[in-house]
């Protein structure tokens, strides 16, 4: 194995890229969970967003249209989940699983005929002076626009939850939906909006994988990224800032194992490919040991019958 062939600057730069899809998807799920909705359909929404974005970008030639289509696709699918859990009052765990199974089938169906095509490239943000700083430049300032969108979204979600009235209402709904209802807040409406936001974010994250990170379309290409995003929310104890840290950690592990594969590690490729999932489990165990506090109404069904 040739460890010298791994360039730390490139490693950090690709870490930012690898972290972006799970960061965006996890932020969406974070908002949904803070509103008290446990949506296990992230994987399904991500893969649907991946193909919607890919198809739209290929057909129009514009990555921007692709990302918009991905957000709409993810949100559209999450609307099914919103209907099931908020209107039909179905179990959230079961509904989320249904969403994932359905989304995997839907994306495979939509993706027929898109295999082996290259999507239009997304432009990189080349900031003239900052990008030329040795070391720091490529790591921080040489990425595509979605990387910065992810960072901006993280700050926005953090600020929204902490400082705005909308964030306060969202948290109230998630902590105690009966009290929020008694105060006159529309619990179901807030939750549906949170679910839609989560779906749009998952769709964007998925499209980032199919349009920028890979970039091509293969069936089941998200390969558990949606589940890692879900784990990230638990890891982050439902705090936006820590989602960013977690995303970098998982991005780092992914990139490192890919680099080790390329460097010709003695370990077979399959064992290296396991590592992101094993690290996720390990981190979940460490986090659950000090009992993070989930939103109190998480996963509970709300019905204004009383």
């Amino acid at each position, binding site marked *: 194995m040739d460890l010298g062939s791994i360039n730390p600057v490139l490693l950090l730069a690709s870490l930012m890229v690898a972290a972006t899809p799970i960061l965006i998807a996890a932020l969406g799920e974070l908002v949904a969970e803070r509103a008290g909705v446990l949506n296990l359909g992230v994987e399904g929404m991500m893969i649907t967003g991946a193909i919607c974005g890919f198809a739209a970008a290929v057909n129009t030639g514009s990555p921007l249209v692709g990302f918009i289509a991905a957000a709409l696709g993810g949100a559209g699918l999450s609307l099914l989940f919103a209907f099931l859990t908020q209107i039909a009052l179905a179990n959230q765990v*079961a509904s989320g699983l249904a969403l994932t*199974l359905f989304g995997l*089938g839907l994306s*495979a169906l939509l993706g027929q005929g898109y295999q082996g095509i290259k999507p239009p490239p997304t432009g990189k943000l080349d900031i003239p002076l900052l990008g030329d700083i040795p070391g720091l430049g490529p790591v921080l300032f040489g990425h595509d626009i979605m990387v910065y969108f992810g960072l901006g979204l993280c700050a926005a979600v953090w600020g929204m939850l902490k400082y705005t009235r909308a964030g306060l209402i969202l948290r109230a709904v998630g902590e105690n939906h009966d009290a929020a209802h008694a105060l006159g807040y529309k619990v179901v409406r807030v939750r549906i909006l949170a679910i839609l936001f989560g779906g749009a974010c998952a769709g964007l994250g998925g499209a980032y994988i199919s349009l920028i990170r890979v970039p091509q379309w293969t069936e089941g290409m998200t390969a558990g990224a949606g589940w890692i995003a879900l784990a990230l929310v638990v890891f982050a104890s439902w705090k936006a800032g820590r989602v960013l840290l977690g995303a970098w950690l998982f991005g780092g592990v992914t990139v490192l194992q890919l680099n080790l594969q390329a460097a010709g590690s003695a370990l*077979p490729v*399959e064992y290296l490919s396991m590592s992101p999932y094993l690290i*996720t*489990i390990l981190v979940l165990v460490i986090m659950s040991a000090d009992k993070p506090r989930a939103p109190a109404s998480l996963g509970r069904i709300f019905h204004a019958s009383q």
Partner: protein
Amino acid sequence: MLKLEKRPQPSRLWTWAAPLLAVVLTMLLGGALFAALGKDPVEAIATIFWQPLFGEHAFYYRPQLLVKGAPLVLIAIGLALGFKAGIWNIGAEGQYIIGALTGAAVGLAFYPLDAWYIFPLMVMVGALGGWLWAMIPALLRVQFGTNEILVSLMLVYVAEQLLAAMALGPLKNPDGYGFPGSRNFQEYPAAHNAEILGGTGMHWGVVAALIAVIFAYILLGRHILGYQIRLTGQAPRAARFAGVSPPRLILFCLGTSGALAGLAGLFEVSGPAGQVSIDFNVGYGFTAIIVAFLGRLHPVGIALAGLLMALTYIGGEIAQSNLGLPSAAIQMFQGMLLFVLLAVDLLTNYRIRFKAAQVA
């Protein structure tokens, strides 16, 4: 105005009528989907649901019903025990793979010895493998309170990588001219899960599924443990006051479902699939989740739901070759079924009333 009123108890009628209604509604929706794909909806639905049972080549497809239904039922029975108690094992696919791997490894280790005890030993080790794989999320949940949904699911991806490593490495057929995949069990009778009666599809996995259904029925209906499972699902606090030990229940439910999934994997790999290959698993572990819910988490219901789901697999294959219906459409159809069922279930737990809007 429509108003929902919570029923004091779930409706008995709708508990059984909801899945039937869901199947009918899904057929309608699926027909619309197939029409959108440019296929004749009536012909497509008939191909999926009628051809395998009563069509021209039904004699060939009917046995397949058992072959495909058995693993689904076996896994779903185990999942249902946990789901009833609010313990969510969604990593059955991983336990299925590990069961197949460990069981097959034992069988291959004895090659070419011919002895009666090889297959039973494989069955036991397969169940043990699945059990051990499920013990990981179970112990982590009991010891650290780690979310079992995420851990069991993550372990599916780990198991898939392990399967690839094994099929390309230690378990690779030494006489296979470098092709990936293990020796074929059909050429090793002592370890082959052959049909018990030729041409019926009846292999040992089907027998195991039947036994599992009967045992689960007795367990849930007559045994104290089954009562504790149901109680924990409906009223966790009450269950704790009644002396139910949650850790014991978690270990039991996850362990049992893991062992059953491992069994299903072993029977599949040593019978219908024939060998350990990178992609011998076709997602039964995930489809079994649909089967468990469609069967109302009830053993008899699950047996019926498993057969129905097997029908969609077989009919889907026929529709694929005869009508050119993409296989993804069938996968989506199965997902749709769970969706519709969950929506229709509203009628089981709530009563819909028509009421004039009142001034508060």
